[in-house]
């Protein structure tokens, strides 16, 4: 009599074939991950933080939110945590919802608990959107560099792209006439290239135009060059410069952090693609006539994602730290309460109201620590070298 594993379905061929216990890759990784206690703690904190942040968004959103982070009570300045509100001087609608100031109040008498709730949401969105942007750019550029790396870029294509890009930049910078003429020139070049390119098989390229098809360098050189250029900038200083020069809106900050931190994932994806490109399943897909686009995004990217996933998790932690640092220096979006600007407003009352420093400081520390631990645990699990050992 064969004792069936509870997880496995009865096999279609009822002949008493002993099935191996069915465990998906996810279950296997999960079992491995559970053994790492620090990483598990990180995951639990991350889930709690996620719930608090989403809850915080709904509780502090709108005209008359449950917890109003912007409600000024000048008569209740710098009250310590857990202190009771002064019932005589407050209007009923100004009373804190919890009956006490759980985390105290700041120098304008705003409730720190409500501000922390809103700050949690801001930190969460900054982390996820900035890293999301970075991963999308990284996967796209890294994928192109890894897959099409060896193909050459003709002079004409580069010229057309430069003209079009320069035109867009000029329009953004306010020089509309110059921008439009650049775009027209670029468009004309592109049209010419397409026309000549289509006719290529039928008749030879005219002598005058052959210079446009002179191969400059490969795609790989272009993209790795771009990565090298981006790595030359001191990241925090660059972000600071850009954020100081553009209007300080939280969305811009997310975009800027994302645009300056994609290099890591681009490098990972490129390196993975260089080895995946030579593997049999890619050759098989090519032989079946699958389009390049589909090979890259359906077949290769899922196989190359694990190092990116790890660096993204840790990237969220550093994005939260960068945003807190920016708010601390006064470049944040003042229309939201963020953990950084609560801390920043607390620095003037360091010895009189230390809770203004400690509450947001520990919050940032715990959340960033959780992301780092979770990311490192993920790295261990996804590392095939380590898996063999268990």
């Amino acid at each position, binding site marked *: 009599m064969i004792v069936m594993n509870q997880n496995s379905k009865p096999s279609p061929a009822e002949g008493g074939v002993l099935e191996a216990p069915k465990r998906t890759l996810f279950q296997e990784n999960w079992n491995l991950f559970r053994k790492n206690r*620090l990483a598990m703690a990180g995951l639990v904190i991350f889930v709690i933080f996620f719930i608090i942040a989403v809850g915080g968004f709904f509780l502090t959103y709108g005209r008359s939110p449950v917890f109003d982070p912007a409600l000024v009570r000048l008569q209740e300045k710098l009250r310590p945590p857990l202190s009771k509100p002064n019932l005589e001087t407050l209007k009923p609608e100004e009373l804190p919802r919890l009956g006490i100031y759980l985390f105290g109040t700041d120098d304008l008498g705003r409730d720190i608990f409500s501000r922390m709730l809103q700050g949690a949401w801001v930190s969460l969105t900054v982390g996820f959107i900035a890293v999301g942007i970075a991963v999308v750019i990284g996967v796209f550029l890294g994928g192109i560099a890894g897959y099409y790396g060896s193909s050459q870029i003709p002079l004409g294509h580069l010229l057309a792209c430069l003209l079009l890009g320069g035109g867009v*930049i000029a329009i*953004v*910078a306010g020089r509309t006439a110059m921008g439009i003429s650049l775009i027209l020139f670029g468009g004309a070049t592109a049209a010419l290239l397409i026309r000549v390119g289509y006719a290529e098989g039928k008749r030879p390229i005219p002598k005058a135009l052959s210079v446009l098809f002179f191969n400059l360098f490969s795609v790989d050189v272009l993209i790795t*060059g771009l990565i*090298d*250029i981006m*790595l*030359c*900038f*001191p990241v*925090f*200083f*660059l972000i*600071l*410069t*850009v954020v*100081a*020069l*553009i*209007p300080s809106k939280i969305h811009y900050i997310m975009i800027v952090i994302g645009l300056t931190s994609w290099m890591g994932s681009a490098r990972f994806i490129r390196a993975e693609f260089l080895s995946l490109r030579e593997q049999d399943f890619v050759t098989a897909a090519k032989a079946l006539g699958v389009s390049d686009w589909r090979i890259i995004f359906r077949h290769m990217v899922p196989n190359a994602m694990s190092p990116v996933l790890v660096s993204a998790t840790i990237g969220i*932690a550093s994005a939260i*730290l960068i945003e*807190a*640092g920016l708010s*601390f*220096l006064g470049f944040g979006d003042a229309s939201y309460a963020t953990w950084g600007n609560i*801390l920043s407003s607390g*620095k003037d009352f*360091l*010895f009189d109201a*230390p809770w203004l*420093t400690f509450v*947001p*400081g*520990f919050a*940032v*520390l715990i959340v*960033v*620590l959780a*992301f*780092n*631990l979770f990311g*490192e645990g993920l790295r261990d699990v996804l590392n095939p070298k380590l898996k063999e050992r268990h």
Partner: protein
Amino acid sequence: MLAFIGRSAIQKIVTLFFVSIISFLIVHLAPGEPSQIDPLNPKFTQEVLERFRKEFHLDKPLHIQYLYYYRDLLTGKSVSWKDNRPVLKKIYERFKNSLWLFILGTLITWTLSFPVGIHAAIRRGGLYDRSTTFLAYLLISIPGFFFAYMLIIFVVTHFHVPVIGMETFGISSTGWYWFMDRMWHLLLPSILGAAGGIAVLSRYVRNQMLEVESQDYVRTAKAKGLSPDKVHYKHALRNALLPFVTMFGLILPGLIGGSVIIESIFSWPGMGRMAYEAILARNYPVILAVNFISAILVLVGTFISDLLYMVVDPRIRL
């Protein structure tokens, strides 16, 4: 070797050229202009604005401005828009102050990370290893400014000494007392600057050491009955140290990176603060010069580390 040097020199110059273009575009295409920094100031009449724009070539097209700016920078004639002092001289003055922070911070980082990392690797899985691992994560995750304030609160309430600035305000004595005062002020910011480095480097040392300890020649050394000290420090450590030689090149960019946040908390008149003030005042020459010099340092640093790699490890042929 020569071919490699020539090839990478050309590559780095091209990269530097594009970095200069991109940073110039970022600064100049952003909305607003330096001449509008203080629109309510009654001294800024239309006429003064025109003169300002003419003086600093702001009325010329962008590519001309670019050529003017980098010509001035490379010949050392570029001046700060705010106080008309030469940019390079200004940077050099601030650089001297940041240099001390950098030297002390680097010393702390390297002297602490190696023993910690090596011991953690030798006692792998033990209490020491686990606690230093956790401590390293803690140091990476703590926001620098929060850590700074915790240290300030601790030092000020326990030792009752001033910690802000480069020296105690109004100090007039010289000699030993002055030296100790400077050192004392230097200590906190350098510890803060070193904290992240210690965490990263000690983890790296640990991993490197673990990698080497699992090699066959270490097992052989153990099998032939060498004392554990000899195995760990003579056979394993020497090989584990290889990649760190190259890191001497990679710490070079830190010279100019001087942390903006730490320097502004401690009112330290260093590079980071100068860059921060330049950003606030839209002082383009200073911003661009800091950016340009740090890009040069990054490129030179990677170049040195590539060269050292080749020198140290003859198996590597670039």
